[in-house]
């Protein structure tokens, strides 16, 4: 019986606003080659492969066709998860736990810069009958949610702006990040109104890049590396896709996914046990809302925790030291991939200028973006 699954190798291209010098294939090959070299394994030895991708972001009707070559998966058991990297990670975890696979490689990437009108594409996810005919910006869904969240938790737009300030500053220490900057709350509040209370700088801009990770069962992992990063907990959840039936204040999908992951990891007191977290901040308020859903802050207290400095780089529970989506860039299906990458580098002690001292347990959480209510959580450790 397989008891544990660890991450034994990871590779990335880093993230840039545009990547005109490489095709998606060349970009992904770079990340895959680095991951396999990192793991000390050749793709021919790997048991299974997963790509996390959605058709229309790639610009293909069947994006799955184009996944094998650049990850070395020709004639290998390979699948696409049209979901976040962390959902693909969960699939890889389950594959190994069946006992039928010793190793699985997981790839996710973003070439969002190749989509001419990304807002319109996001709007294509709306219910075609009830919502889409209004031709509203997809960010309006986040605007609706932000209003309700602020109302229920007595949080202000200025407090949400502080998330942007923190994360863009964090990104300055991260060589992978595309959108690091020193800015103030005033800059955020003065940026263009998109769907109030959301301003332009409250919204994570998209970026390109690829990440590949290699998973292995416990025995194989220890044979391949001295420091596997273990998957301790996983959770994923989908709340109602019907916007009209949604609970607009609470991120229930994140709460339920976290409960599942905490149970699996045996974590009773998350705020005490988790050393650091990379959580979804695709919109500024989302970091705060998710902190509460993850029980890293009590309801209504996330903004106070932020203002106290507890979630900053040197705080008690650093959140998004990588810079998050606001600082690194929004990566769509690769959002979770970037977060897992950050956890692995931190837990290995390889995070350079942004290394948090003495960390053993990290949490990564993603949300699939508007208009979805789907999210996933992964808890990793180096022990």
């Amino acid at each position, binding site marked *: 019986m397989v008891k544990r699954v660890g991450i034994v190798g990871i590779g990335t291209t880093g993230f840039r606003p545009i990547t005109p*010098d490489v*095709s998606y294939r060349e970009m992904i090959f770079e990340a895959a*080659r680095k991951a396999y070299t990192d793991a000390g394994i050749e793709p021919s030895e790997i048991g299974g492969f997963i790509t996390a991708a959605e058709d229309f972001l790639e610009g293909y009707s069947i994006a799955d066709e184009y996944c094998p070559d650049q990850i070395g998966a020709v004639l290998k058991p390979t699948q696409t998860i049209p979901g976040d990297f962390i959902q693909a990670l969960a699939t890889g975890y389950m594959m190994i736990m069946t006992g039928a696979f010793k190793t699985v490689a997981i790839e996710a990437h973003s070439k969002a810069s190749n989509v001419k*009108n990304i807002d319109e594409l996001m709007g294509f996810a709306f219910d075609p009958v009830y919502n889409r005919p209004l031709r509203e910006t997809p960010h309006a869904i986040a605007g609706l949610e932000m209003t309700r969240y602020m109302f229920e938790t007595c949080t202000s737009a200025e407090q949400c702006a502080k998330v942007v300030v923190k994360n863009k500053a964090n990104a300055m220490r991260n060589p992978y990040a595309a959108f690091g900057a020193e800015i103030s709350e005033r800059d955020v509040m003065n940026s263009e109104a998109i769907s109030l209370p959301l301003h332009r700088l409250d919204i994570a801009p998209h970026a390109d890049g690829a990440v590949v990770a290699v998973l292995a069962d416990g025995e194989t992992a220890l044979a391949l590396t001295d420091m596997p990063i273990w998957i301790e907990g996983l959770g994923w959840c989908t709340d109602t896709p019907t916007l009209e039936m949604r609970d607009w204040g609470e991120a229930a999908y994140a709460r339920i996914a976290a409960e599942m992951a905490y149970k699996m990891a045996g974590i009773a007191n998350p705020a005490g046990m988790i050393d650091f977290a990379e959580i979804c901040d695709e919109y500024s308020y989302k970091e705060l809302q998710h902190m509460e859903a993850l029980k890293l802050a009590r309801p209504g207290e996330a903004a106070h925790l932020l203002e106290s400095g507890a979630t900053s780089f040197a705080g008690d529970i650093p959140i998004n030291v990588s810079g998050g989506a606001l600082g690194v860039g929004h990566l769509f299906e690769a959002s979770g991939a970037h977060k897992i990458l950050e956890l692995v580098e931190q837990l290995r002690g390889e995070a350079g200028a942004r290394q948090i001292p003495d960390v053993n347990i990290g949490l990564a959480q993603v949300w699939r973006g508007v208009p979805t209510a789907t999210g996933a959580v992964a808890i990793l450790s180096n022990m």
Partner: protein
Amino acid sequence: MDLDTCELGGTPLKSSDFEKCKVLTTEWKPNLGYAWDNGVAIGRYLAELKEGRIIARVCHECHRIMLPPRMFCELCFRPTDEWAYVEDTGVVNTFSIARVNWDASRRGPKEPPLMPAVIEIDGATKGMGIMHMLGEVDPDDVTIGMKVRAVWKKPEDRTGAITDILYFKPIRAAAPKKAAAGRKR
């Protein structure tokens, strides 16, 4: 369980139900536009097509000369090593005589059928084919194994695209017609 005794879902509609507005519907034309980065390999491939040449990439480990070119060998999983021009001639691996357009509309009675084919390009590793069209040949005369040569657009009309090759035409006179049953296309 027995499917025959189950009440199955699925309410069939006729296309006339849409035309006569018997059911409510809503329409949408998505604006899904892209500008895909060519990258190194396809960028060069297109640039060479504009010059009237076909270029491939070589892997020194498996010694394959690969078409379309790629910067990595998907089998050896290493970078490919060098560029190599290949011929603009080849062999028909397989073909079809198409009377249907891409959107399933039928070609008009006066429109000639389209003749898509997989063409194994001379100079590339055996089996390395590309999809392209056949032309200047009667549909009944096309055969698998037929030698063909690219017919290029005029240099000034080329844009750096696969369509800089108009089609491939037979190099020699077509082989005599086969009389096998079902051969009429």
